């Protein structure tokens, strides 16, 4: 891994974090939605670096393509441009939120690191080899092998959600 | 012979059963059935009496175990049976004869009455009971027939059950005799307690052997207790003072009933009881005096009462009580033989008197002497018979009354001379004799002599048909002395061919009773007493008759003036010494019924309302307290309280549910935070 790539990964992580901040605190809901889009992209890049290229692809397609568009649509449908101000976040709560985040994040981070250290480490060379190998075949085999039941269950779930969403959103 | 006695008793019972069930449907409503039954009994009794006359002694017993209880400690057994001795034979003869004649008489007298067959049923049952009593060899069956007679007298007195006085009289009769019967029953219990049996033979033997001297009943010497109880029974049944009140009222019944039951037989049963139990009375030494006094007092007081009566049957009723008093006095003074003879002769002439009065009543349809008079010409036969019977009862020579009354008075006089302390007994006896003559002739003069006081009734008066007159004649003939001793009745004159069957009979019975030989001291007293008594009784009888004819026949002394002269005594006599008032108004109305009402109220209020339902009130009270407690404490505080708390709790918690999704998220995150913090802290 060349340092250049590491720099790109760091930038992607910073993009993620900054856009996440925008999503939570931006008064205008529309801008928050767009910021979310960029957060997804940042995450996709991180996946690529973690050797999960197929997942990154799926992430981009589903989240960036689907969910964000959906949200934008929702925002557009529920806010009369000229009537409802898009201002959203309540002012007086900003301070406790920030405090909360600042306090909890290092605690959770420390516990996650502890968790990570306790679990079994892989030798560095196998890490590189794992990052490089093609995952898609493995995923395919696993999907129709060990994970057959969840795979089927997920299909039913998606069907249910689809029908539900259509049912709910259908005008009278 | 004992079997024939059984038949004598069973025939009338059979007649009774037939009459009760089939009487109505039989021809002539079955009076011939009863007549036939009593006739056969008479026929069966005659040979027994004949045997007594010829052989001078009759004895036969038959007994069987009626009720036995096997008990390991000693079998309790009741043996009953038939005893035929001299007295039984005489009594059988008398009872069957009188009953037969009265059956005959009542065929005429009761002609046309409704429940005619029932009358004959009851009369047959009565005859059976009397015969049963006469022949029974133990006190238990004696008592059973004794009370059966009480039942029959109740039924017959109340025969005209539509008349309130009749049914009141029947109840009064039954209750008064019942009081006496209870006394006799206790005597019977005493006998069983002391001797273990009630058979006369074994009792005579036990008393003679002095077995019962030591035993005591209720603190009294046994024999005295039994004696008093027997006396009580006799007082009840023979209408002695103070239980005499029922006999005059018993006249409400038809006259044949009065004749049969309340003259000849039933009332005599009391005296017969005393005679049967004489050994016991004698052995107890103290009881006989009381018996004598009861007899004497009854004789005198009843005779006095008879003077003021206006109802013909009431006069005869009181005269019966008085004559019974004589018999009881006879037994009391020890002359039980004389008493028994008087019983027999009295049965005959008193039955005759009653039947004569019956025929008089039947012809003039009233019982009140003041509406009669001058019937001599109208009813010659009745008059003749009644005159003979009256002469006999007054105790004039040539008549049976004289024979027996003289002996009784002689016995009383002898007793008086021996035990001078008791001089009152002969005095009352002789006084009663005089008064008897007086009121009997008063009756004769008022009914038969003088002028008719009520023309209408006098006009209707007529002699009764033969079926009623025949019995009168037979009974009248029996009232002569010739049958019982000599023709004149005076032993001295009749030495030549006087009839001695009675003395032999008495001797036989005395032997049986195993009486202790009477203390033969100064034999002279008896002879002197006998002759003195003879003179006194003749004098008194004559005076009585003379005095009565002065007042009623000649009218020299007007009864009205007499009445005013003795007015206090008269009112006393008229109200029958206020005995009735005492019994009915005071003892029964105020005492008994008042006490009953009080007790019933007590029972209803105190025990029922307070003691029993009181509990329900207490329970109700407790219930209300418990209810209150339960309601207040448990219900309000605990149950509602907790409900309230939960409500408050609920109210408090409710505020949490703000409905905003985010708040719920915060809460869950807070919980998650604490959970993590706790876990981390733990480790």
């Amino acid at each position, binding site marked *: 891994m060349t340092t250049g790539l590491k720099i790109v990964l760091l930038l992607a992580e910073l993009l993620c974090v900054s856009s996440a901040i925008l999503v939570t605190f931006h008064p205008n809901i529309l801008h928050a939605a767009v910021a979310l889009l960029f957060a997804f992209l940042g995450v996709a890049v991180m996946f690529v670096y973690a050797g999960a290229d197929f997942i990154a692809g799926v992430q981009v397609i589903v989240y960036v393509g689907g969910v964000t568009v959906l949200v934008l649509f929702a925002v557009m449908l529920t806010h009369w441009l000229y009537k409802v101000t898009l201002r959203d976040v309540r002012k007086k709560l900003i301070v406790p939120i920030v405090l909360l985040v600042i306090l909890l994040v290092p605690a959770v981070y420390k516990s996650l690191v502890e968790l990570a250290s306790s679990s079994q480490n892989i030798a560095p060379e196998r890490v590189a080899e794992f990052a490089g190998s093609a995952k898609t075949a493995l995923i395919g085999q696993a999907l129709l092998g060990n994970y057959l039941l969840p795979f089927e269950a997920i299909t039913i779930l998606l069907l249910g959600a689809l029908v539900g969403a259509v049912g709910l959103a259908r005008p009278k | 012979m004992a079997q024939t006695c059984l038949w004598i008793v069973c025939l009338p019972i059979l007649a009774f059963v037939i009459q009760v069930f089939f009487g109505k449907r039989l021809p002539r409503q079955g009076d011939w059935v009863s007549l036939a039954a009593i006739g056969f009994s008479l026929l069966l009794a005659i040979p027994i009496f004949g045997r007594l006359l010829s052989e001078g002694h009759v004895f036969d017993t038959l007994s069987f175990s009626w009720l036995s209880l096997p008990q390991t400690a000693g079998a309790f057994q009741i043996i009953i049976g038939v005893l035929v001795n001299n007295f039984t034979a005489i009594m059988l003869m008398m009872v069957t004869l009188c009953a037969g004649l009265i059956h005959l008489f009542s065929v005429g007298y009761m002609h046309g009455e409704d429940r005619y067959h029932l009358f004959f049923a009851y009369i047959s049952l009565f005859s059976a009971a009397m015969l049963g009593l006469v022949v029974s060899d133990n006190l238990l069956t004696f008592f059973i027939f004794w*009370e059966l007679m009480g039942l029959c007298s109740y039924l017959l007195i109340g025969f005209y059950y539509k008349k309130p006085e009749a049914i009141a009289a029947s109840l009064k009769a039954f209750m008064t005799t019942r009081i006496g019967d209870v006394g006799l029953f206790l005597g019977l219990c005493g006998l069983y307690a002391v001797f273990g049996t009630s058979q006369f033979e074994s009792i005579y033997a036990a008393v003679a052997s002095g077995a019962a001297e030591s035993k005591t009943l209720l603190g009294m010497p046994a024999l005295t207790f039994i004696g008093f109880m027997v006396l009580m029974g006799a007082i009840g049944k023979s209408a002695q003072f103070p239980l005499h009140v029922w006999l005059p009222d018993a006249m409400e019944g038809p006259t044949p009933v009065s004749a049969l039951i309340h003259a000849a037989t039933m009332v005599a049963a009391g005296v017969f009881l005393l005679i049967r139990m004489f050994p016991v009375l004698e052995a107890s030494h103290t009881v006989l005096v009381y018996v004598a006094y009861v007899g004497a007092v009854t004789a005198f007081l009843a005779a006095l009462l008879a003077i003021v009566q206006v109802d013909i049957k009431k006069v005869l009723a009181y005269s019966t009580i008085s004559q019974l008093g004589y018999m009881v006095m006879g037994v009391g003074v020890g002359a039980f033989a004389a008493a028994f003879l008087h019983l027999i002769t009295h049965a005959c002439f008193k039955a005759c008197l009653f039947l004569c009065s019956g025929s008089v009543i039947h012809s003039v349809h009233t019982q009140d002497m003041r509406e009669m008079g001058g019937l001599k010409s109208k009813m010659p036969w009745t008059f003749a018979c009644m005159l003979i019977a009256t002469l006999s009862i007054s105790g004039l020579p040539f008549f049976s009354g004289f024979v027996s009354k003289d002996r009784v008075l002689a016995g009383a006089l002898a007793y008086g001379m021996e035990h001078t302390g008791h001089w009152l007994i002969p005095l009352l006896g002789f006084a009663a004799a005089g008064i008897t003559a007086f009121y009997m002739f008063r009756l004769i003069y008022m009914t038969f002599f003088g002028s008719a006081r009520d023309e209408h009734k006098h006009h209707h008066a007529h002699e009764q048909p033969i079926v009623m007159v025949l019995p009168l004649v037979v009974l009248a003939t029996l009232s002569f002395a010739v049958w019982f001793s000599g023709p004149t009745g005076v032993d001295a004159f009749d030495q030549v061919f006087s009839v001695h069957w009675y003395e032999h009979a008495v001797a036989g019975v005395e032997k049986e009773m195993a009486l202790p030989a009477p203390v033969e001291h100064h034999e002279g007293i008896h002879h002197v007493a006998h002759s003195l008594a003879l003179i006194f009784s003749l004098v008194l009888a004559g005076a009585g008759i003379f005095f009565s004819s002065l007042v009623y026949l000649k009218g020299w002394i007007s009864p009205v003036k007499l009445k005013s002269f003795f007015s206090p005594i008269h009112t006393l006599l008229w109200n029958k010494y206020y005995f009735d008032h005492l019994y009915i108004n005071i003892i029964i109305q105020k005492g008994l019924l008042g006490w009953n009402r009080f007790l019933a109220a007590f029972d209803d209020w105190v025990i029922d309302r307070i003691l*029993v339902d009181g509990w329900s009130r207490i329970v109700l009270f407790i219930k209300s307290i418990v209810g209150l407690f339960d309601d207040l404490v448990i219900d309000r505080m605990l149950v509602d309280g907790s409900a309230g708390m939960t409500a408050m709790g609920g109210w408090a918690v409710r505020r949490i549910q703000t409905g905003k999704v985010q708040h719920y998220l915060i809460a869950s995150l807070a919980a998650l935070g604490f959970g993590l913090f706790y876990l981390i802290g733990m480790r």
Partner: protein
Amino acid sequence: MLSWITFIPLIGMGIILLLPRNNANLVRWTSLISTTIPLLLGFGLFAKFDRGSAAAQFVERVPWIPAFNIEYFIGVDGLSVAMVLLTVLLCFICVIASWRISDAVKGYHAMFLLLETGMLGVFCALDFFLFFIFWEAMLLPMYFLIGIWGGRDKVYAAIKFFLYTLFGSVLMLLVLLGMYYYSQPHGFDLIQLASTRPFASQTITLLGWQLPLDKVFWVLLFVGFAIKVPIWPFHTWLPWAHVEAPTAVSVVLAGVLLKMGTYGMLRMNFAILPEATKWACNFLAILAVINIIYGAFCAMAQKDLKKLVAYSSISHMGYVLLGMASFTAAGVNGAVLQMFNHGTSTAMLFLLVGVIYDRVHHRWIVKPDGSRGFGGIAAVMPVYTGIMGLAVFASLGLPGLSGFISEALVFLGAFSVPKLQIYVVIGSLGIILGAAYLLWMFMRIFLGPLNDECKALPDMSWRERLALLPLCVLVIVLGVYPMPVLDLMSASISQLLTLFS
């Protein structure tokens, strides 16, 4: 045989419950049949009963609850055979007498047959537990019979009867448990308890007091049975129960239920606790005399005919007690015979009261406003007057009828015991009062001028005469020759009395 007698009425009840409601006559006939069969079996029992032996006969013994060795142990001995026969006879007569009951006929006859089974069971049971069960089983139908088919305030009477007897049976339950606990081979068998009499020497500590066990048992049992007899202070339920009960029920109540108290005393108090009984003998005699006199006095003051007869029952049961208190052969035999004779004579009286009640629907001798209830009925109803006369004279103890025999035996027996003599004298007052109130009632109702109210009263129907016929025959026959019934019981009683000699 005995089980059949006891349980045929129960089977009858079962059948009746299945029958259609509207067919009243069918119900009545089934009920009649299911009382006739025990009657016929009763005759068989009477014939085959061995007069000599004092032991229980026709015994049927089946272990029922082995854990507490409770057995279905039934049998009949001298004491109870007369009562069984009486019960069977009276129930047969009562079914005939209750032919006119028209409302809820099915319920009535079902309850009645259950009652009969209960009663027969009480007399046959020789196991205390079984005895208690039948005792309670008999109580329930009685409550319904009085409570539903009774007179004006029937509910009050039914409740009072039920609670009163229940109070008694609660005490009996205590003794039941006590006897079970204190008897050596823990058991309820009455015959075995009577032979071993284990309670004489033991003592029990109650609330700190050291009490002799048998006396405690005796008193508790006595109160339980005294309520049933009834004895003086516990008697107030009887007039109410009688006045309100329908005719047939009050016949059975007076004819049989009262005898259970005295039978129970003989079977339990006398047989198992003889020393305690001897200790309480005086007490019994006093209560007996109170019963006699008190009952007679109250009877005389009554205005209601049925109440008068109820109080007369109290007075007559006083004789039974007096006989029992004498411990003599004559006394106790007289007592048990009086239980039988009183059963027949009172049954007649109640049936006759029922006859007049069916016609005029009131029982006032003297109406509350003082006017005459009846008067001079003899003219209108001769047969009724005749039979009533027989019943009245039977119950007042006229010699020649059955009442006298038992009263005479009781008094003969009691008089031979020196310390009871004073009680006999007072008791004899009862005989006079007995005659008084009965004849006074007879006079006021039957004799005298005809009361125009009762002018058109029909005489007794053939059914009523049929119901009364057996009782009349019994009263007369036993009055003349009492041995057939007496020697049924004398063997057992003599064996019982060996404890007291």
